[in-house]
């Protein structure tokens, strides 16, 4: 496979996954805030600030008044801001276009439909009444795309590279969402006297990554900070957990690098190293310095991506 095309497939996977997480974050935060148990979590400004935090544009000054329509438009459909959903979808499709000869017709048609759905979505409808419809459609269409990726592609290099993109992005987005909700939990703490460890925001966090039901089944208790972090970061059976994503990355890199004992400068070696590090972590350790943990793991994920670019996508 051409190195350039491999790079495009990798990023196609990343953009699809990113669009999904951003869309769900908007949806869950907006709608769960409507009947949140405390005033701050119900506040529109609080929710909009949280959205901006997630897309990497946190506000310096909490007293700035955000306009709901502007924020929704920017994150959803404003093609001139890099973090918008519409831009992620455009990039996903552009990357698919250039690798069109390698992916299945079925997958391409689904990406294409996805793209047309987004670019034809009325901005007015979206900012006034379509938030639910738009974001649910995005998350459902990305689920279809994942199905097409798994079900209509040969599980060879092409598949491995797309899955590497998807899983690296998933780990990254889950960490970013944890970071954003942790930030919200800290802010919400003072307002109703509850401890941060039992904040309402942990439930929202789990819903943002579609893991609330799984979590309830596993722990059979209301989520706390410890159980949530443990579940979303360290539980290998949770398909959205960071460790699960890293395990997937580890599995798929082996398709590209078949050597039994990878060279110490290889991507495969770095991935094994990162994997080993998190396999034996425990949640209390993370909770002690959650900021430090988040920075460290995000950095590891960036390093993996860079190494991969140098080793496989260099053209």
């Amino acid at each position: 496979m051409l190195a350039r095309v491999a790079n495009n497939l990798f990023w196609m996977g990343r953009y699809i996954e990113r669009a999904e997480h951003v869309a769900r974050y908007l949806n869950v935060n907006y709608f769960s805030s409507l009947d949140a148990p405390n005033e701050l979590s119900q506040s529109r400004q609080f929710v909009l600030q949280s959205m901006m935090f997630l897309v990497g544009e946190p506000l310096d000054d909490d007293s700035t008044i955000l306009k709901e329509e502007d924020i929704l438009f920017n994150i959803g459909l404003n093609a001139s801001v890099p973090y918008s959903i519409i831009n992620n979808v455009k990039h996903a499709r552009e990357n698919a276009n250039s690798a069109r000869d390698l992916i299945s017709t079925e997958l391409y048609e689904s990406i294409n439909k996805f793209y047309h759905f987004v670019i034809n979505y009325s901005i007015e409808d979206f900012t006034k009444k379509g938030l639910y419809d738009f974001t649910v459609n995005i998350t459902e269409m990305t689920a279809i795309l994942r199905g097409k990726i798994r079900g209509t592609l040969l599980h060879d290099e092409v598949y491995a590279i797309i899955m590497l993109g998807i899983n690296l992005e998933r780990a990254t987005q889950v960490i970013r969402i944890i970071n954003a909700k942790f930030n919200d939990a800290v802010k919400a703490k003072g307002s109703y006297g509850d401890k941060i460890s039992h904040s309402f925001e942990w439930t929202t966090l789990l819903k943002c990554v579609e893991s609330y039901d799984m979590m309830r089944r596993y722990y059979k208790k209301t989520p706390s900070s410890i159980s949530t972090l443990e579940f979303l970061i360290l539980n290998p059976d949770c398909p959205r957990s960071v460790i699960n994503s890293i395990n997937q990355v580890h599995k798929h890199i082996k398709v590209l690098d078949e050597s039994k004992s990878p060279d110490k400068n290889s991507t495969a070696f770095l991935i094994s190293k990162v994997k080993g590090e998190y396999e034996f972590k425990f949640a209390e350790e993370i909770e002690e310095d959650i900021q430090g943990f988040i920075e460290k793991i995000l950095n590891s994920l960036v390093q993996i991506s860079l190494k991969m670019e140098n080793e496989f996508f260099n053209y």
Partner: protein
Amino acid sequence: MNPEVKKPIFSSYINNPALFDEVFNTDGSAKNVYQTLLDLYGNHSIQDYVQLNNKAKSSFFNQGITFQVYDNKETQEKIFPFDLFPRIIDEDEWEIIERGAIQRSRALNLFLWDIYHDKKIIKDGIVPLDLISSSANYLHQMIGVDPPGGIYNHISGTDIIKHSDGNYYVLEDNIRCPSGVSYVICNRTALKRALFGVFNHYKTHSVTNYAENLLDILESVKPKGVDVPNCVVITPGMYNSAFYEHSYLAKAMGVELVEGRDLFVENDFVYMKTIRGPIKVDVIYRRVDDQYLDPLEFRADSSLGVPGLFAAYIKGNVCLANAPGTGVADDKAIYTYMPEIIKYYLDETPILNNVHTYHCSRPNELKYVLEHIHELVVKPVDEAGGYGISIGNRLSKAEIKVVQEEIKQNPRKYIAQPIMSLSVHPTYIDDSESFEQRHVDLRTFTLLGNNKEFVLKGGLSRVALKKGNLIVNSSQGGGSKDTWVLKK
């Protein structure tokens, strides 16, 4: 709407007797091959048809078989207009077209070999020296180069019309990078999805075997010493209007679709950059024009090409299809010599007619042209893109005088041809929600390899969607039809 008042599909079709209708006779009856099809379509109302048509459109759209239109603000994607009423060519007529297309391809290949080697046809006075010495597409770098397998025009697209006299005429031979074959295949797919029932009543040749034949042809011209050649398709990139076709062909052949930046040349061999390091490339189906192939040899500002590619080619380490320099043979002026070229190299008479051409440089032909301007098309020999063309029957008396004067001033500069009338085919028109007569042509695709040749049984029937328009190019708002070649 009351279903009882649904209009039958051809109820408002107007058959202009002055035009050659491929489906209906002047008395309103249908030609034989179309009778069954008309009976089947007759079961549909025009409303049903509108629905089917819309479904077919969205199928094209979802498959991303589109081209980009730029307006002042943003780019829009459009599908190529596609008509669900197919064109049928019966087996006997097709046989003539097929033999004629192969004959032309072979003759052009021999012509190209000759003008890049001994130039016998010019020395023998058949074709004037001017035609190559004044051609910007004649590449001196190709003189004396022997392309692998002796093939220059591996892929040819021949534009053919049916004239009002019922005969086929060739309008143009395209042997640079002719495009359109992917639409032939898409049109067939769309028609099968929309109206699968009709295929049971006709024995139609498949068109999906094009890619496998193309790969065979490419493999047949592998460089010397290569056992199993690595073939690739090179594209200018995803913003090229024919990118869909490039990716379709690569995918259907199962080969890599590369851009210039994916390739590099070392020691005069060509390699592609893959995730597992460099892999040698042996045959390149190039959809990049000559001038952009290699910035070290041709246009230095080209970022589409590969530095050093041409040297690798002339050393025989890689094959390019079509060969560089083929463009010289699809100049308008060469076209007018096709009957002589066929006779010279093959000692055969042309199977397909050329539109008769009067050379104003020849005194007796000049006389005829000056006297018959009102029934001729006058063209300058050295202009491209339709510039400077006068269509006789659309000129006023005063304008005819002006044209006569211009020709007299510089007779060498002009040729003239009879005004050709393209046949018409019933075509669904969105605006009037009915079928109307529209002019059509046919682009056929011929492949030439080392001891192999192939003509795709089918082709791209292009329709001029504007009423009365004779220009079928997609850039001018043309559409297309599925084209059925019947089996014996």
